[in-house]
């Protein structure tokens, strides 16, 4: 349990290196919601193959890691209607804001982008409020 921050830091550094690679080699911001969103809504056709390759890696490596090392588990506990509500909010919110934890949080904040910092403040506030309401007041998550 004590070592969890070490795994967090190590995993974080790897996430950062992935973003560095995508920026310095492909010249792009590594934003998960943008990459998935462009594939889903069919925008930015020239980048479609590249986006699909990114998603294939993003699914494939954790799948292998889960098979070979430690079985992955999301421990997703929320009831199905809440899961659907959450998914809708995450999808619409990130596209409306043009970014999520990776795009605004990692890539934006690291270049001291005001938009990235403001987005991060508001999604942390929204997340904190949701856990307060749904866990401590309603007791459903």
């Amino acid at each position: 349990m004590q070592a969890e921050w070490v795994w967090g830091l190590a995993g974080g550094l790897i996430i950062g290196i992935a973003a560095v690679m995508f920026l310095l080699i492909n010249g792009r911001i590594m934003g998960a919601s943008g990459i998935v969103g462009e594939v889903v809504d069919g925008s930015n056709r020239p980048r479609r193959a590249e986006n699909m390759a990114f998603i294939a890696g993003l699914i494939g490596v954790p799948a292998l890691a889960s098979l070979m090392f430690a079985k992955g588990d999301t421990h997703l506990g929320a009831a199905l209607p809440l899961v659907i509500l959450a998914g809708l909010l995450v999808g619409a919110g990130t596209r409306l804001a043009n970014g999520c934890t990776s795009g605004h949080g990692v890539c934006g904040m690291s270049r001291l982008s005001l938009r990235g910092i403001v987005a991060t403040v508001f999604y942390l506030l929204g997340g904190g409020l949701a856990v307060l309401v749904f866990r401590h007041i309603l007791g459903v998550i």
Partner: protein
Amino acid sequence: MQRIVFAALSGGLFGAGLFLSGMTDTRKVQGWLDIFGQWDPTLAFVLGGAILPMAIAWRITAKMGRARLGDAFPPPPEPKLGHNLVIGSTLFGFGWGIAGLCPGPAVASLSYGGLGGLIFLLAMMAGMLGTPALRARIDRLAA
């Protein structure tokens, strides 16, 4: 072809980092957001660890001029914040708190996230498809 290979490598590394850091575990994410309960600081280390190499990389971009495969680097972000940034981020955060998944981990955990994870992912994609209509409505209200 090179672009596709490096995109897959970046995605794979991103997935490895998410898996290793515990970001695909909704309990850790909700623990980080639970400032009134058993607060779990792990996510701060994940975010800090990810920002560090990127902060260096942004400095390198100034010297490189262009990305390795020839593209121009992403331009500096617009200084304008706009209501959609604030509204969208708040909605996203709210959903993030309810389920404990954001877009990267939702995709990364597809192989072991079970039916719930798949339903979250499909709902997220539906939300993305509905965004242009939502944006038009919000812009009309804000005008």
